[in-house]
């Protein structure tokens, strides 16, 4: 029964994705500037015949709705177009860079939850104590700090001055890691390459913390306030009256319910994670999707920007779907 509901929800996402594709496509077509000119680059003389050939190859001579139809048809089949500037299919480029971005995003999520959940719980349990005040002040600082600046400061302190952690990139130059899935942690585990694993983890720390910091701050605050609310509710009073041990009251009863609004916020923050990716990837020279999009924008490589934006939007919609499903497991009263 539930599986059907999940499928239903997933199907609803499809029209949204179509809408996204149409918006992205329209944006690209409404841009001033002839794509063929961009493709030809600035130098040299090109014959009119060449230009005509290119135009028909990229369907630029067809009316707008035909172009839209071709674009949608291709997109559904996984063909996101052809990059003018890099002379490679967009899908290939995205596939190359996606694992790096995903590894970073997952690392950020893990860092933020490891920090935020204990802090949120402890702050609620020891309300108004020094720990509570300090951690909430820290959380407040976290949401006010711009991500790019935090990254730069972390690099300055930990990499440049203290030399504890590397400055940039995903892995040391001299680490020999076999090309596998593109997920360096997975690859190094599978090939038993301990040096590469250590190197990858060291490189993940600073960018992961930078990306995860703001999310950690928001989650900690929301968790704390929702736990405080659940402490006041009847079932907690009952649990205490029953004589249940305090840790059981906190974890089994209060936390379970307090997690509900928290999971919502985590889901909302996925969007921030995806967006913040670009900033952090630029600051740490991380070879991921975000940095590629930024340089694609500067190079006026519209198909690449278009394809990447669509991938981002798809990930976002999927992540929201996952969060919604998780929701129903946390609170059986809520149905999809």
């Amino acid at each position: 029964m539930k599986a059907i509901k999940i499928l239903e929800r997933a199907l609803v996402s499809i029209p949204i994705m179509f809408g996204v594709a149409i918006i992205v496509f329209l944006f690209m077509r409404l841009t001033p500037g002839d794509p063929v000119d961009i493709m030809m680059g600035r130098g040299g003389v090109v014959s009119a015949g060449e230009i005509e050939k290119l135009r028909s190859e990229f369907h630029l001579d067809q009316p707008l709705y035909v172009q839209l139809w071709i674009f949608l048809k291709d997109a559904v089949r996984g063909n996101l177009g052809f990059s003018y500037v890099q002379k490679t299919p967009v899908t290939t480029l995205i596939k190359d860079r996606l694992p790096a971005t995903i590894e970073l995003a997952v690392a950020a999520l893990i860092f933020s939850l490891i920090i935020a959940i204990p802090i949120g719980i402890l702050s609620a349990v020891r309300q108004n104590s020094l720990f509570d005040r300090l951690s909430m002040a820290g959380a407040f600082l976290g949401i006010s700090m711009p991500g790019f600046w935090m990254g730069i400061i972390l690099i300055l302190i930990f990499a440049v001055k203290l030399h504890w952690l590397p400055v940039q990139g995903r892995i040391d130059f001299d680490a020999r890691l076999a090309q596998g899935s593109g997920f360096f942690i997975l690859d190094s585990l599978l090939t038993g390459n301990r040096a590469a694993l250590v190197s990858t983890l060291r490189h993940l720390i600073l960018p992961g913390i930078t990306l995860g910091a703001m999310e950690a701050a928001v989650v900690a605050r929301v968790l704390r306030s929702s736990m405080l609310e659940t402490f006041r509710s009847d079932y907690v009073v009952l649990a205490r009256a029953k004589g249940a041990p305090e840790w059981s009251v906190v974890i089994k009863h209060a936390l379970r319910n307090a997690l509900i609004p928290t999971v919502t916020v985590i889901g909302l923050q996925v969007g921030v994670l995806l967006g913040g990716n670009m900033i952090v990837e630029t600051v740490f020279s991380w070879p991921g999707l975000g940095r590629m999009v930024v340089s694609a924008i500067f190079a006026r490589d519209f198909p690449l920007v278009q394809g990447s934006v669509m991938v981002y939007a798809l990930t976002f919609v999927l992540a929201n779907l996952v969060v919604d499903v998780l929701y129903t497991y946390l609170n059986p009263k809520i149905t999809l």
Partner: protein
Amino acid sequence: MEMTPPVSQPTNRLMHVWRIQIKLWRRSTREFLQELYQHPTTLVGGIVVIIYILAAIFAPQITSYDPAKGNLRERLKPPAFLEGGMAKYPLGTDDQGRDLLTRIIYGARISLLVGSISVGISVLIGTALGALAGFYRGKLDALISRFADLLMAFPFLIFAIGVMAFIGSGINNLIMALIFKGWVEFFRVVRGEMMSEKTQEYVEAAKVTGRGNLAIIVWEILPNIVQSIFVLATLRIGEMIIMEASLSFLGLGIPPHIPAWGSMVASGRNFMLAAWWVSTLPGITLMILVLSINLFAEGLRDILDPRLKTIA
């Protein structure tokens, strides 16, 4: 005593409503200020924001340097409190020999302007559309809501970057990119509030006395909603300012000779070892501003409308 029917004397009634409104405002302002004194962090936040605003307005009076042109012989000088620094460059100079303090103060203009204008226009658009959609419902509501849902499918920064990729950079386009997604949140809040207020009795009463729909929306319902909108708006200003700084950092915002904190941090990255202050100090200034705005806005929310705690 003869009761004049309200419908036949609209102007009188309007003035009556406004007189009561002003009296309420004056009393609530006094109460508000009293509350403010009891929340010192909020007060501090508000004062710092005012200092920033004043500094931005009176920038030419405060510093005599030109923020755009520098003296190349004086490049990368350290701030006055480090060794090698001089008093005439209190915060040092950047790679073009421009005084950093001057650029930081002028940078406040951009941040404050972009932040307030983008939030302001987002509020206007979102409120107008939300009020209409929430009140009239029907096809209009369905259309706009679907469009808003579609926009929500994009993460904010990516959407802004995407928009700017296509329409170009520059401060106007930056503001437009921020507004393009910013209005959605206000639209949703106003629409929700409008739908719930519509069922209240005073709306029923207004309809019975023959007031037109538009008048009801503007004069009866909106004044009740304005407070929550205001609080939400102040909470978002900080976020918009960080967005602007992030976009400038990526090079998508303001042309580099115009001082903006984001691009200053970006250009200073190349000199981190030699001159860390070029990147760090604008960042600190930005953080303090956003911190103060957030302190003030959160305090405002706690005073005026605590139930917004779940949204923000």
